């Protein structure tokens, strides 16, 4: 079996084991209501994580996603509060803000050649500060206002118990996997991350590819913003804080390597579900918040350490194999 398939099997099994663990210790874990909630929780992280998966496969990183969701959401909230435009316009604006934010990331990283970490850390601050610029104020004080447009709130709703955001996640994930595996863009994304020099020599414009993946991620942040508004019905200045780390954790748990060229959307979906099951399950124990966070952190560390140990062992085995082959030939082949 190929190393990647083994790795995939391990992540699916650990998701099942974790679910089973929570299911056996808590009576209301395996209820339809709870499972649908888990899916809902996983969906916003997951939608954006599809884009971040692309970015990480090109050997990049995007730290600005959470702040961009906050920014796009806040722009919409202000728009609704001050101008009451039709819901479609609001959503379009959310997508546009996301798209522009992502394109800005891409421009800074691919065209200005700022290292991803620094570039997207700066835009994280930029987007977060824009949240405050666009925040709704009453006599100079930032105020949290309820969004009462039912056509917007419908995005937080469900069909037959399944939340709309989950459908969106499904569509985005399937589209993402098709792009990665079945289109030229997908092949070029892998090529850019695994060996960018060679990709360039094969005539691939790697700067353009990196520009595209950041723009896609920004666009998905816009989609995420629409569902966040729909779910919460209001926008606070800290909306989306820390979301970028949940997203990155999901992609890494799903098998993306920071060195690039590895991973796919299927893995990321597993990763997003893993994160969501973990959060949901811990809640059931009524631990204090600090304990919950500690357990979450520890589990993520364990998974990531396991991943790196596992990769080292797999790498070693490949080398061992090559060495043995060489030894055979050395022993038998001397003319």
């Amino acid at each position: 079996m190929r190393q990647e398939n083994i790795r995939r099997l391990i992540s699916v099994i650990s998701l099942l084991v974790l679910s089973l663990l929570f299911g056996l210790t808590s009576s209301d874990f395996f209820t339809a209501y709870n499972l649908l909630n888990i899916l809902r929780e996983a969906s916003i992280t997951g939608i954006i994580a599809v884009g971040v998966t692309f970015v990480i496969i090109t050997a990049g990183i995007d730290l600005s996603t959470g702040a961009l969701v906050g920014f796009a959401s806040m722009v919409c909230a202000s728009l609704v509060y001050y101008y009451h435009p039709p819901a479609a316009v609001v959503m379009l604006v959310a997508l546009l803000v996301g798209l522009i934010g992502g394109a800005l990331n891409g421009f800074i990283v691919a065209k200005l050649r700022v290292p991803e970490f620094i570039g997207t850390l700066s835009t994280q601050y930029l987007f977060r500060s824009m949240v405050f610029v666009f925040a709704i104020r009453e006599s100079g004080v930032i105020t949290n206002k309820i969004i009462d447009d039912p056509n917007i709130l419908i995005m937080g709703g469900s069909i037959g118990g399944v939340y709309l955001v989950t459908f969106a996640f499904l569509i985005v994930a399937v589209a993402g996997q098709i792009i990665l595996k079945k289109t030229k863009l997908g092949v070029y994304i892998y090529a850019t991350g695994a060996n960018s020099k060679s990709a360039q020599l094969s005539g691939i414009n790697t700067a353009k590819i990196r520009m595209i993946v950041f723009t896609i991620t920004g666009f998905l942040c816009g989609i995420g913003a629409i569902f966040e508004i729909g779910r919460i019905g209001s926008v606070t200045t800290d909306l989306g804080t820390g979301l970028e780390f949940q997203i990155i954790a999901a992609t890494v748990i799903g098998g993306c390597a920071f060195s690039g060229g590895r991973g796919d959307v299927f893995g990321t979906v597993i990763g997003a579900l893993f994160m969501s099951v973990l959060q949901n399950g811990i809640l059931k124990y009524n631990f204090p918040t600090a304990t919950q966070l500690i357990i979450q952190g520890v589990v993520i560390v364990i998974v990531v350490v396991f991943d790196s140990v596992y990769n080292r062992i797999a790498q070693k085995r490949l080398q061992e194999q090559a060495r043995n082959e060489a030894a055979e030939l050395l022993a038998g082949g001397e003319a």
Partner: protein
Amino acid sequence: MAEYLLKMEAIEKSFSGTPVLKKVDFEVRPGEVHALMGENGAGKSTLIKILTGFFPKDGGKIYMDGQQVEINSRNDATKYGISAIYQELSLIPTLSVMQNIMLGKERTQTCLLRSKEMKKEAQQLIDRYGFGLKPDAIVETLPIAQRQTVEILKALNGKSRLIIMDEPTASLSNKESESLFQIIRQLKEQGVSIIYISHRLEEVYRLADRLTILRDGARVAVLDRKEIVPKDVAVMMIGKALNEATASENLRPPKPEVVLKTDRLTRKGVFQDISFELHKGEILGFSGLVGSGRTEVMRAVYGADNYDSGTVLLNGKPLPKNNIGKSISLGFGLVPEDRISQGFTPLLSIERNVALTNYDTLSAFGFVRVPQEKRLGAKMVKSLNIKPGNPLVHVGDLSGGNQQKAVLAKWLSRGLNVLIIDEPTAGIDIGAKDEIYKILENLAENGTSIILISSDLKEVLRVSHRILVMRKGKIFTEFSEGSITQEDLLMAESGITKKGA
């Protein structure tokens, strides 16, 4: 069709005023395997880099099919059907064979890849040349030899008519090399021309239709297949004048006592049954082609790598395996081949770099003893004549030769028993080379035993008491002082003994 597929005429190139190519002519016929030989620094790789668009030429003309062409970039080279296969393979490791072959030339239909069609195309290409490859195999899971064939296929899919292979067998086993030769013959039958760069006389002897020999940036001979005689080729590569360079007379004979002794040292697949003795104050040359295992043996002796069986004795006592700290405390020093990435810390000053190996004596309770550190730095700068003579200059800002001296200073300041030094003068100008040789000779006189690994035959001959030649992971032969010429050494590296030639 013109007589020559490729014709390079009076190519000139200098680096910072030093001519590297002096009006070199070079021609390749359609469908021939043309070997290009020469010692390190003869200008082979510069010529090839001009041909593939990495360097601009200073003068001369290039013709393809009789038409004059300008090659200013890798893309230009590809346009004219020229491609190069390098040792550092340029494939995408996580993609499949098919995806690599088709990279940049994908077939699509309304955005989606036509995978079936592409797979069929790749399979046809594989079949046409009879390579046993599966289009779905992921490249990183293939052995090096097969990756090389993927690379060749990629070049062929780009409609290459001239493929340059630079030391293609360096990392291949015998069996793998054989299948590469088979592939080369098939390519030839299909009318593809090949420029084959190799140090291995026996391969060139078997494969080449013609042979061009470069020496010191000039073409010294073009031989037809029947004119290729290994012994003559060796002489032509080295040149008459240099033939006299045998072991240095300044060397004082070593003392009889054995400092280091290895017994049947073996690491599976890397080296086998390596036994040698090193005497006090001796300089032992370790020669052999790149990939012969010389560096790996020394890393194992030093404790940087593990080995499977055998023993290493230092002054009669066994040295623990894979324990660099122990080796250093017992008076071992290693100056690595890759000076820039492993030898020094570029952003630290000379004195700090020298001190790095000496903090056991240069610190007290975790604090650096600054006056002693400064004194040692100044002493080493002076005694090794490092320029500029300021111990506070960053090592990264020094010239190659002075960097190497700084690396030596790191170890010399400790009073070593055994110094292992790998390619000490690669990329260093002649003046600095001489200084480094003198440093080594002085060291040996003062009782340090030195193992010198080098590809530069003149260097090995000049500074070694004895020379061991490694070949394919084993010690092939041993020469002692006075009984050897460059020619012998060159042929031994290729596996030809004196009598056999």
